[in-house]
């Protein structure tokens, strides 16, 4: 076999080398294309094309049954000046982002610092704080609606026992969102683990030199710990805001369960936002408009606004971060 191949060896002329190199380059390109092909196809079918179609649908009236009808800017006009609920949905979403994101970050950071200083039982505490993050959101929400249910829930039993006021929690327009924030704080685990890794990674010599300079506990926290872990804080904020813009499951389940009126998945949609639209968040409204009322054109306009906001928020946060985020290692400038 090998002898036969040797016998057939072509004479290599100088010109052939160039074409061989070119052929090799094409083969490499084909290889990259083959490896990338799942993503290229997926990106086109499930991202690029839908993005274009969302833009198109947003200028139409479309109910899935009949073909889309061009209505120009009518959806956007209704979005910005006609819809009575959208203002509530937007302000609820901003509220949950403004309250939950910093609170989650502070709480996760606090627990991480305590854990990093603990002398014993770190493994046990870490598991305890992480475990709730694993609980499926639907199950966690159900659990909290039970724990916080006004009449017979354990939390209100305890509060009454202590002579404290017992709020209506998920049944009260003022307390429904704070209840969701509590639910979020319970599931802090992932963030806590990330903060813990960052806090442990802060080089010891930085603390020592701060101590030599006469810094107390708070000062070394402010001038050593926080600057060193600032990339993680940025990460927590970006992820928190992006998750806030998608906030759906907990709000959907809490409102339908607390309202208790639903008999099927479809009817459940009627109690969305219960009580009094206090848990009506932007993605919940988008779902209701698009998939319960089948106002797909209007829902597409909402999706376009969400796209612009999500994109802008990411860019703004990442841009401004240069002022206060400190990356370790050699300076790039």
């Amino acid at each position: 076999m090998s002898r036969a191949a040797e016998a057939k060896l072509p004479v290599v002329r100088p010109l052939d080398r160039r074409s061989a190199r070119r052929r090799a380059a094409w083969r490499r390109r084909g290889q990259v294309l083959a490896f990338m092909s799942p993503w290229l196809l997926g990106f086109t079918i499930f991202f690029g094309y839908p993005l274009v179609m969302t833009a198109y649908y947003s200028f139409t009236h479309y109910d899935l049954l009949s073909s889309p009808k061009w209505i120009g800017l009518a959806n956007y006009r209704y979005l910005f000046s006609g819809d009575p609920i959208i203002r509530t949905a937007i302000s609820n979403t901003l509220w949950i982002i403004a309250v939950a994101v910093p609170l989650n970050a502070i709480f996760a950071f606090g627990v991480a610092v305590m854990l990093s200083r603990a002398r014993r039982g770190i493994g046990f505490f870490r598991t305890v704080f992480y475990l709730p993050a694993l609980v499926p959101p639907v199950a966690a929400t159900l659990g909290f609606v039970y724990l916080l249910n006004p009449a017979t829930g354990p939390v209100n039993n305890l509060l009454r026992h202590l002579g404290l006021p017992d709020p209506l929690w998920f049944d009260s327009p003022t307390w429904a969102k704070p209840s969701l924030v509590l639910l979020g704080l319970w599931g802090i685990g992932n963030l806590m683990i990330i903060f813990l890794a960052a806090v442990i990674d802060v080089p010891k010599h930085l603390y020592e030199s701060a101590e030599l300079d006469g810094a107390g506990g708070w000062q070394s926290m402010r001038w050593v710990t926080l600057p060193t872990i600032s990339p993680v804080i940025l990460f927590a904020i970006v992820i928190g805001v992006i998750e806030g813009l998608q906030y759906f499951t907990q709000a959907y389940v809490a409102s339908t369960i607390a309202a208790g009126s639903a008999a099927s998945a479809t009817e459940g949609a009627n109690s969305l936002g219960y009580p009094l639209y206090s848990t009506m968040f932007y993605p919940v409204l988008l779902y209701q408009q698009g998939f319960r009322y089948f106002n797909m054109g209007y829902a597409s306009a909402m999706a376009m606004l969400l796209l612009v906001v999500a994109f802008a928020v990411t860019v703004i946060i990442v841009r401004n971060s240069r002022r206060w985020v400190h990356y370790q290692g050699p300076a790039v400038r």
Partner: protein
Amino acid sequence: MTSATAKAQPPTFTRRKPPANVRRRRFLVTVADHSFLIAAALVFLAPFVFIVLTAFMTNDQALSPDLWPHPFRFQNFADVFSEAPLWRYALNSLIYGGLATLFLLASSIPVAYALAKLRWRGREAAFLIVLVAMLLPPQVTVIPVYVMWAKLHLVGSLWPLILPNLLGDAFSIFLLRQFFLTIPDEYLDAARVDGCGEFRILTTVVLRLAKPAIAAVALFSFLFCFNDFFGPLLYTGESPDNWTLSVGLAQFRTVHQVQWNLTMAATLIVIAPVVVLFFLAQRAFVEGVTLTGVKG
């Protein structure tokens, strides 16, 4: 407690005994830290405790201020299974999670490899697009995608949730790429010198070195599917036969208005597999990490 804390101190401090007031302050700080941790741990565990206890109560007890079930009503769990087809939901969750994870690994690994280890023009731009696709809310594209599946008559089944994974998933590609970057190029070059094609390098060298990362991605993917609510609600909301545990659980309470004991039993049944999986996988992860540490 004092002697224990003194012993646990790192050797640099034991060289010279710190003054008494410093030692006392350190001790108090330690006590404060630990009491905070213990209090917070109790608060974090309390929901679990209440869910478990209520799951064993009779309906009357669940509505009373009683904390401890007497008697323990194990019948609740049998009732839950007879009230709702939980096995059916569990099977659907398993189908969704299993197939999606399998497809996602098969499609995302080569993409991550090309983004991390092959050199080509436009690679950084392609990676940036992956990042953007990962960060944008899924609601932005959900309407045309739904219309697409509706036209294919697949709304009502789990396929709209499973099939897209054949074409890669941004988050998994991102994670795998980050791990592939840590594999030294020397290994791959050695294989190339030996006449190994890129595909064989991927299936032999890279896959073997990246086992822990692949296991982590598979676990994340499965947990995501198991926890996913928006997707199954959107596509199977109208066909209860295809509900997953998440959707089934969300509907369970609505059939049984005030039966908190049964609802909490169902909740417990959904939480339990995840917690068990965590404790099993935790060991596997630690082993994986230590293995790579020894080899590296």
